[in-house]
């Protein structure tokens, strides 16, 4: 039992962590949390199932198209829901505009795709003992994203430009960095990461429209606990969340696991509003 708690816990934790990273990538570029993070994860599963199962495309093509779809949604988010309200951050309009966009995508999916959870194809036609692909795929995706982001941020010019924007967008703009294009690129990247999370976790989560609000919530928990914009914090907190949730699932049952996660989340947030790692002091006057 412990083995299955650990394997499913780590796998689902990796998905949460990836959604957390999706939040973070968007946040770093714009200081905005977007409700579309979980929607991207949901789309990964739905698009994967659509392209591969229903349309019969090869796995690689289906993956690429799903990721491209995520990138498009990321860019649309930036253009439609983020850019117009960035100037009025005080009013927190972004909460509403990104919520509206997330709902639109979710409802569109519910109507066009259906409200039932549909199966996600098995990606590799292999069956051997050991860890099943539905568990190691999310882990692999998570590892790939972490390594990829690390390489991007440390070793490429565009990655450093991302960091510059995240650190101080005003100074970055003054230095001549094309802030708007970089922000769009960040949102596209976030879109890719979010859909990859849903794609890799497709077999566990299925192709189901209601995964959107679920991932929006559980994907935000690692961000809140790990600290805003802190990817390492998100991975650690995401894995802990996954393990805790699966353990509670096995021990006390699904509903009470949800209640337990929610309660722990609220308590930790109330005790440490800045997350377990990191602190910030805002000047208000």
């Amino acid at each position: 039992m412990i083995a299955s708690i650990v394997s499913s816990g780590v796998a689902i934790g990796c998905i949460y962590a990836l959604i957390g990273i999706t939040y973070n990538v968007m946040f770093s570029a714009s200081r905005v949390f977007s409700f579309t993070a979980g929607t991207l994860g949901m789309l990964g599963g739905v698009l994967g199932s659509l392209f591969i199962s229903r349309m019969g495309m090869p796995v690689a093509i289906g993956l690429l198209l799903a990721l491209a779809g995520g990138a498009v949604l990321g860019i649309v988010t930036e253009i439609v829901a983020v850019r117009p309200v960035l100037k009025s951050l005080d009013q927190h309009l972004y909460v509403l505009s990104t919520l509206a966009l997330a709902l639109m995508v979710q409802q569109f999916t519910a109507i066009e795709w259906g409200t039932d959870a549909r199966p996600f194809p098995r990606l590799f036609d292999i069956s051997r003992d050991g860890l099943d692909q539905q568990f190691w795929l999310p882990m692999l995706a998570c590892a790939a994203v972490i390594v990829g982001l690390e390489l991007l941020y440390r070793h490429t010019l565009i990655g450093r430009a991302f960091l510059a924007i995240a650190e101080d967008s005003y100074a970055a703009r003054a230095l001549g960095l094309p802030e708007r294009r970089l922000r769009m690129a960040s949102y596209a990247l976030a879109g890719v990461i979010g859909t990859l999370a849903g794609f890799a976790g497709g077999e566990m989560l299925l192709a189901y429209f209601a995964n959107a609000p679920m991932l929006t919530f559980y994907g935000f928990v690692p961000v809140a606990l790990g600290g805003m914009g802190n990817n390492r914090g998100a991975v650690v907190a995401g894995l802990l969340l996954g393990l805790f949730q699966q353990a509670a699932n096995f021990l006390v049952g699904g509903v009470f696991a949800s209640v337990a996660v929610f309660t722990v989340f609220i308590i930790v947030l109330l005790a440490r509003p800045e997350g377990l790692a990191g602190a910030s002091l805002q000047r208000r006057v």
Partner: protein
Amino acid sequence: MDQPATQFHPSRVKAAGAASPIAAALPYLALLLVGLAFPLFGGGYWGVIATRACIYWVLVSGLNLVVGFAGQIAIGWVALLTLGAYTTSVLVAGNVTPAFPPYLGLAVAAIVGAIFGLIVGLPALRLRTFYFAITTLGFATIVTQVALAWQSVTGGGVGVAGPVFPEPFDSQWSFYYFCFGLAAICTWMTANVAASRFGRALTAIRDAEVAAEASGIAKPALLAKVFMFSGAVAAVAGGLFASLQSYITPDAFTIDLSILFFIAILIGGRGSILGPLFGTILLTVLPEFAAPLVAWSTFLYAVLLLVIVLAIPGGIAEMLDFRNRRPLESDRAIVPRPDRLERLLGTAPDAGLLTLEQVALSFGGVRAIDGLDLEISPGQVHGLIGPNGSGKTTTLNVISGYYTQQSGAVRLNGADLPALARHRRAQMRIARTFQTPRIVGSASVLQNVMIGGTIDGQCSFVESLLALPRHRRDEARLRDTAMLALEAVGLERLAAVRADRLQHSELRFTEIARALMLRPAFLLLDEPAAGLSAEEIRRLGALLLAIARAGTGVLLVEHHADLIFDICHHVTVLNLGKILAAGTPAEIQSHREVVSAYLGG
């Protein structure tokens, strides 16, 4: 749907843009008549729709105080509806306890709703907007899951029968009148709160939180009351909803419903009662006219939400606000009338001295203030000048509790000021203004000034809900005092105008009027002359001198050296957090270092 008891008093406010109470009440009266007469023309099915609209409004009216007034993004409020529906149904069905009479069940649901409203709402005190939105969303998901899983009580996916209300509310139309009556009462109660100091304090928390704190508004206590009220009416709505549905399952309470409530408020407009009321009716009825679109209704709501946020953030209420579109006079002068100060400020008891002793505070490695001594006496204007970054505003923020000094002491009449207790400064009659005016743009100038007198109100939240006599006395007194304060600073003619239509200089004087509402023993001003014309600065100077003459100690942080030397009794010059010089204006003007470093002589 009664007219709120405390609208503008026409005999007192005849300035541009004032609404007469009758005109303000007309839409409510019209809705009341339509609602009462509805059974005459509506068919059976429309009766269900109308009843549903009333039930939704019972919930939305309460949520409106949370979202529209306090600005808290509570998107998961359907959870309270679910809770109320199940509490009432389960109690009345009697499958856990002995069966309750339906009305008693509804009352118990209200109490449960109030408790959970508080539990769901309280994180708002600690968490920023998105975090709070997510927690309410999470709560909504959890409640549905529990309803689904707790089969022995809720019937799980099979559901439970809703309560049937006994005579006289057992038929369709009598039940409609029951819901309509509750909706009317909710309208009346929330309109009362909106027009009370509590309503103004909520908008201050939403749009100008630091100003709310400086006016002595205790956010936790106020939000707790509003969340409890909102939770209680939402749960009552849930009980009615269960009865209307006659059978409830967890499927009935989707997040879509929550979004509907939330969007109704935003379409209506923040800080309005009538707007969200129309929004609720619109969103309830609209799908009935577009039957093929029913499946798309949530999608359309989302589109609507996006359009509103991007194109008309003010909602219906602002679109219909014709009064505030009439142009204001373009050449209006601010003519303060210091003779009003005596009546406004009265004879304050001697508050003693406000003293800073060896106060030091550093941010990281930067010593913002470094061993500062300062003494502000009643009846004197104390000038604080210095180059940018010399610690002037930091000093002000330490006194008003935004920062805590790392060493040294801030004392009022010999007693230490409590660290970080910002809203308690108002009780000690320490008022302040801000470098950038902190104003509720969507409220009138008069309402903004009345915010300053919040702590002088005596009635409780419940008294305001029910418009009891003490509430009316409070409002009348606050309005009179605020008009007096506006006359004193010279803005009485703009009293009824939306504050965001004012010029910058007028906002500065509005802030001073708001600060005067506290009858301050000490008034801290952060660059009040910035952006003012030479003539306005002269008038400001005369006003500040008159305020000091009335017994208030004034601490003036300013860059305009002329103003400082004209009106101050004592001047302290700061440089890099330390006192460079202190003395009378004459002494400072001849101080060699000050002249060369700062005054450019």
